[in-house]
C-alpha cells in the first residue's frame, strides 16, 4: 500500500455538525453558506498554549465543496471525503455516522461586525455560561473570516483569521491534476476495544488504521479527535520534539500544532495517539476517561534513581 504523506495536510478547526434547530437556525444558515462559499485568500492559524505559540500562514481556496490549501509550494485538496496531495498521495472516507452538536453548547445571537473592512456577522457559542468559540462570517462570500476558540478559563486558545480574502478561487479550477485517481480508503471496523464515549465526545466511527492500528473518530459536534490505538510499543520521531505534560499526575507527550494537538501515551502495553482540535480543558477531561498511562515503568524509576 502506498504510504500517504501530505506535505500540506489539511485539518479543520471549525467542525460543525447538525445543529439543534431550536438553538441555532441562524447559526446553521451561516455554517451552511460557509460550506458553500467561494473564496480565495491567505489565513493565519495560531494556537496559544502554556506560553507557546504555534502558527502557520497558508493560502486557502474554497469553491463548492472543494478546498485547497498551500504553503511553501506544497498543496493539498480536500472535498467530498477525499484528501489528496500534490505529491500523489490520496486518502478517502466512504462510510461514516453523523454527529449531533452536544447540548452542552449554546449558540448566542449574532451581531453585525466589520472584519478586514468587510461587513460580517459574528456569533458566539457558549458552554457553561462561558464563551467557547466566536465565529465571524463574511457577508459577501459567506466565508468564515475569523474563528476564536477559548479554553476553560476564557483565554484565547486558538485563532484562525483570514489575512486577505478574494472573491474568486482561481487555482482550484486549474488544479485538477492534484486530484488522485486512486485513494487509500478508510475501512470501517467493529473489531475494536475503543470506549464509546469520553467526556462528552461520542465515538462516531472506527476504522482500521495503518500499522496495525484502529482509528476511533470522536466528536461532540463542535470539536473532534481521532484516537489511534496501536498494538504494542509505537513511536514517531515527531514526538522527539514533544513536551511531556502531566494530567492528573500522569504523563503524556504532547505536540502543539497551529490547528491541532497531538498526544501520545502508553497504556496496557499498547500505544495511543490522539489527534484533534479540542480545547485543552476538554482534552484533559477526555484523557481522564481514556485508558491511562501506567505508573512510571522500571526504566523511568531506574533513570530517576540514577539521575535524580
Amino acid at each position, binding site marked *: 500500500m502506498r504510504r500517504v504523506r501530505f506535505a500540506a495536510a489539511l485539518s*479543520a478547526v471549525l467542525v460543525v455538525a447538525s445543529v439543534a434547530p431550536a438553538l441555532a437556525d441562524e447559526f446553521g444558515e451561516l455554517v451552511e453558506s460557509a460550506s458553500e462559499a467561494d473564496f480565495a485568500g491567505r489565513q493565519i492559524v495560531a494556537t496559544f498554549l502554556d506560553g507557546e505559540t504555534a502558527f502557520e500562514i497558508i493560502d486557502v481556496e474554497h469553491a463548492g465543496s472543494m478546498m485547497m490549501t498551500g504553503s511553501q509550494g506544497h498543496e493539498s485538496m480536500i472535498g467530498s471525503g477525499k484528501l489528496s496531495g500534490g505529491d500523489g498521495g490520496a486518502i478517502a472516507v466512504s462510510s461514516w455516522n453523523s454527529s449531533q452538536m452536544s447540548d452542552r453548547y449554546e449558540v448566542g445571537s449574532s451581531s453585525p461586525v466589520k472584519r478586514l473592512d468587510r461587513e460580517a456577522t459574528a456569533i458566539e457559542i457558549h458552554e457553561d455560561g462561558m464563551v467557547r468559540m466566536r465565529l465571524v462570517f463574511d457577508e459577501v462570500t459567506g466565508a468564515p473570516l475569523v474563528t476564536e476558540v477559548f479554553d476553560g478559563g476564557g483565554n484565547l486558545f486558538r485563532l484562525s483569521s483570514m489575512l486577505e480574502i478574494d472573491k474568486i478561487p482561481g487555482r482550484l479550477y486549474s488544479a485538477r491534476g492534484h486530484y488522485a485517481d486512486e485513494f487509500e480508503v478508510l475501512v470501517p471496523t467493529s473489531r475494536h476495544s475503543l470506549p464509546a464515549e469520553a467526556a462528552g465526545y461520542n465515538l462516531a466511527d472506527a476504522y482500521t488504521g*495503518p500499522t496495525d492500528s484502529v482509528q476511533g473518530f470522536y466528536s461532540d459536534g463542535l470539536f473532534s479527535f481521532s484516537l489511534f490505538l496501536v498494538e504494542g510499543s509505537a513511536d514517531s520521531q515527531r514526538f522527539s520534539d514533544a*513536551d511531556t505534560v502531566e494530567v492528573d499526575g500522569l504523563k503524556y507527550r504532547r505536540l502543539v500544532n497551529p490547528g491541532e494537538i497531538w498526544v501520545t501515551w502508553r497504556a496496557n502495553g499498547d500505544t495511543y495517539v490522539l489527534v484533534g482540535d479540542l480545547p485543552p480543558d476538554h482534552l484533559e477531561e477526555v484523557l481522564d476517561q481514556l485508558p491511562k498511562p501506567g505508573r512510571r515503568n522500571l526504566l523511568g524509576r531506574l533513570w530517576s534513581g540514577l539521575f535524580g
Partner: protein
Amino acid sequence: MADVNKTESMEQAAFTGVESVCDIGELMSAYLDGELRDGELEQVVAHLTDCLECIAEFHELKEARTAVRMLPMLQVPDRVMPAAHYGPELSAFLDGELTADEQVMIVAHLQTCTDCLLELQDLDAARTAVRSMPGVEPPIPLMPRIPVRSQRTSLKRLAIAAAGFIGAAAIAINMASSGPEATPVDLDEFADRHTVRVSVEDGLTGVPIFMHGSTP
C-alpha cells in the same frame, strides 16, 4: 459606471450649466490644462479676443477647475495604511506572552501589514533554528519529569546516548518492559486520516489549517 453610456444623453438634457455657443468648446479646457495641440493655441487665443460669451465661459471653466484643484488632499485613515510596526510584540506573540486582546490586535495588524507578517515568519524561523540545535539533555522518552521543549534530536541518536549512559542493564530492562523495538508510526498519516474523516462531518464546514510540522 455601468449605466453611464445609456444615461449620457439624458444627463446632457438635464444639464443646467453654461452652454457653449461657439465650436471652440472643449479647446478651452485643454487650454487651461496646457493640453492644446499644434495650431489650436492660436485658434483659441484668436477666438477669445472677440467672443465675450466664450470669455465668460472660459472664466467659469477656470473657476470649476480651481474649485476641484483646491479640494484638500485627504489623509488616509490609519487602519488602511501600513501602520507603525510591531517589533517586540511579535516576539511576545510567538512566546504566547500577550493577552487575548493583544493577540487579536496583532493578527488584525497582520491583515494589513506585510512587513510585520514577514518579520513574524522570520522570527519564527529563527526560533525554530535555535530550538533545533543539538542539546545535551537526557532523551525525552526516558525523562520522567521535565518537558524538554528546546530539543529536537533523533530517536536514533538518543538511543545511542542512552546506551552509553545506562549500559546493558538498562537495555535489558527496556526490552523486558516494552519489547524489542517500538513500531514506527507515521503521524502525518494519522493526521490525514483524521482530517479526511473530519471533512465529512454532517453540516460541516471547515476552516482549513496547515498543520505545523507536517512537512517531512
